[in-house]
């Protein structure tokens, strides 16, 4: 599903070139639950952003199914990730001005889903995450765990093939964190959604089927 070949990413700091990713090669198959681990600054988030097509590698090949992502134009890339990838963030990144309902609905608007279908999809999602009663609240009125639930619901509403989660429990207490992780493994096992998460915690990583250790932009352990 995802194939990275010799990915490099760097920034120029004066004359010196600092590598964020250095010769990363990686294959991830459909249905996997991968955890990316590593100390701060090891390039976890950068790798995730590259996989999510939000960022581009400076060198190397990236194949998503049969598409050579490194050769696509920005518009085509956007189209590709818009259709296939759901994002979950540490800081939830809900839109403050929109209610829970509207936040979950927003991706559908960008996918030109007709109004009636939108309604039923959002209703399903609210139901599934048991947040029907909170649909008219604004993000600031929810707890962190609830906000992250909304964030996941929003990521799932477009039925993505893969979910990318950047420290999804980083801002949550342990109980809330456990619930989110339970949810992830349930999604992975019951619905076959591919999940790639970045995490600091061994415990969270254990929910996954595979762990990738990064160090200084290189894969230390796979």
């Amino acid at each position: 599903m995802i194939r990275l070949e010799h990915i490099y990413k760097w920034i120029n700091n004066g004359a010196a070139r600092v590598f964020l990713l250095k010769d990363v090669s990686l294959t991830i198959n459909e249905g996997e639950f991968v955890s990316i681990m590593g100390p701060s600054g090891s390039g976890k988030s950068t790798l995730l952003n590259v996989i999510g097509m939000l960022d581009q590698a400076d060198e190397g090949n990236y194949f998503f199914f049969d598409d050579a992502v490194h050769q696509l134009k920005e518009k085509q890339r956007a189209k590709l990730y818009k259709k296939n990838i759901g994002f979950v963030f540490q800081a939830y990144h809900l839109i403050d001005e929109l209610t829970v309902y509207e936040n979950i609905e927003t991706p559908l608007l960008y996918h030109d889903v007709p109004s009636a279908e939108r309604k039923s999809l959002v209703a399903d999602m609210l139901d599934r995450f048991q947040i029907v009663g909170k649909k008219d609240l604004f993000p600031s009125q929810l707890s962190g765990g609830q906000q992250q639930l909304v964030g996941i619901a929003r990521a799932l509403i477009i039925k993505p093939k893969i979910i990318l989660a950047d420290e999804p429990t980083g801002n949550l207490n342990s109980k809330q964190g456990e619930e989110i992780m339970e949810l992830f493994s349930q999604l992975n096992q019951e619905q076959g959604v591919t999940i790639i998460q970045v995490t600091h915690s061994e415990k969270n990583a254990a929910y996954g089927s595979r762990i990738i250790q990064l160090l200084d932009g290189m894969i230390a352990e796979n």
Partner: protein
Amino acid sequence: MIKQYFTIAWRSLAKNKMFSLINIFGLAAGICFTIVIVAYCWLQLSVNRDLKNADHQYIIQSDWKDKNAGFDLATFGPLAMEMRRQYPELVKNYFRFDGVTSNVSKNNTAFRENIQIGDSQMIEMYGFKLLQGNPATAMREPFSAVITEKQAIKYFGRKDVLGESITIESFNGSKKEFRITGVMKTPPPNSVTFLNRDNDNQIFLPENTLSYFGRDLNTWQNQHIVGYLELQPGANAKRVGELMKVTLSSNISPDLASQVRPYLVKLTDYHLGKENASVKKMLYTLAFIALFILGMAIVNFINLSISKASERMREIGVRKVLGSSKAALIAQFLSESVLIVFISTVLSVGLYAFLRPYFNGVLNTELPEVFAYRPVQFFYLFVFALVLGIAAGIYPAFILSSLQSVDSLKGRLGSMQQNVLLRKALIILQFSTAAIVLSSALLISAQVDYFFSKDLGYNKDFIVTAQMPRNWNPEGIRKVEQLRDRFAELPIVQNATVSFEIPDGNISGSSIIYRFGQDSSQGIAAQILSVDKHYLDTYKIPLSAGLNIDNKAGSLLNQMVLNESACRALKLDPQQAAGQRLRLVGWGGFVGEIVGVTKDINFGPLQQKIAPQVYADVKTVNIYRFISIKLKAGNIPDEIQTLQNKWASLLPGTPFEYRFMDEMLAKTYETELQLKKAAYAATVLSIAIVLLGVIGLVAQNVSKRAREIGIRKVLGSSITGIITLFLKEFIVIIIIACLIACPIGYLIMHRWLSDYAYHVAINAVPFSISVGILLIVTIALIALQTFKTAIANPVKSIRTE
């Protein structure tokens, strides 16, 4: 999707209340001003357009070789009629009128009125509507009158006055009843019933009544008649103009004919072009001001939107990650700006309704009420708001939507930094505009003050003027001089004089004068003033040589006094002028003896250079209008009351409509006074918009730099140190803006002032004042705003990360 855009726009407006209010009020002020100006321009542009066959209606103008030799808006009495008679295939219709001023009364109601005496086809030719009466016959019978509904209300208190009568006095004091044969619906703004300020006519008499006033439209000697032509479709106005010249030449003396060239001006163009295109210039000026003020409001919007970007960046990032295209984001930001502009527009319509009376005063017009506008005009406003919304939003929308999603998710400004320069340039533009408007306003008011404070060469203080009933013959002159002496006897009166002219720039006419023994080809054009022997004393016009009129004993010739300009033009030494004889062309061609020479005085508005003038004896010229009475200093209201009583006993039934010389002068400078008010309105508005922008930017700045302030305070910065931090940025901007504004302001004002033969000098004062004001106000504003942040406990702000 659109719905969500508007929802989110509305919620973000509600969330950022100050930002929204600043934006909305700034834009509303700009839009309101624009509506006012557009309404005013539209009113001015529609003058004469509502006349019947407006595209074929023309007015005859005269181009005099010597500008002082005749009126450009009048022509020879029979010309228009002759043109119709000779060239019916070119000229479809004609209309001429003579404007007079006389006393009109009904029972106890008496006023001096402008009366228009003209050809009977007027009403039908221009399609004026009669509320009562038959348009075809209303102006046929002698001693009939058509009055406007306004006059009907004034004299009768009602509009259905057909068959009633009003009393109109002739120039020799006789009175006659005029039967009302028509009541005219208030005509649309036009140059037939309202040629200019002095010819706002509301009473119309048929041409056959003219002899009652001792006038004649049908003689070629009369060159004070206003003439209009309606051309046949397809007729060439230029060709008709040439034919007019031919007709004129065969009817007047070759001498005179060589002096003047008649030509046609389309009525639809006439209003904008008249009086040196003053209306057109005013419209351009106002349109520019409106454009700039609107521009400033838009700049505010752009600046505030971009500076708010950091707060919205996360949302932008999230939306991109969720699959939003750049176009969708642009659409979202545009719908936000359109929403803001729509709210502002609604508010500005409210402002318009509220401020209409004020703007009516400034623009000296009657702007339509909000509900008097037609739906299509509201539709235009809607389109305007839409376009404005897009214009204001398009730049921020592009900037914000092109941020990289990862950067914006992390709140990194990245590409935003390079826009700082552009934003600063925009603020500089705003400040420059404000500085230009402010310094111009100061200079305009300096020039206006100069009009009233300049030593005009004579003394206008405590002089009351009033028009006397006319009786223009030696008998009438004797009578009016007796009346003058009665007034002069009053203990409150210092001096009194009878004259045709008062120094308000309205001159009865000009003539060619030349020295006795020479011929008219060596003559010069001079203004002829009809005055009595007290004139120079009353107005304190100093003599530089010789004597006053009527003071030289035993002279058999008509005595006259010249001003120094006339002496110079005639190549006479003022000291030696006395005793010389002059001959006048026209005015009966009399010969006069110069008895004295006065200093030059500013008889007219300061736009004009002082012209050669001849003070001729009222007994020779036999025309007069005004009595000017110089009061002794004292309780003015009491003195006026005394005058009023005296007037009532001496001239029963004649209205005492007095004006102080000051007021007459103010009327001369109406346009300038108007411009002064408009300039101040624009100044207040532009400064308000600039300051709103500054408030907004500083507020954004403060919140963005809260952490920096906290750190600086922990490191030991003082409160003033922190305030200075914010001030520095804006002071540099203001100084650059002023460097740009001063030369531009100088050029603009230099051009404006060059229209005036006498004007104030442009010095550094108005510029320094405006720079000073802008600096002080901005510094005060920023200091006030940052003070709160500067004294706040730094622990809190540092924790924000």
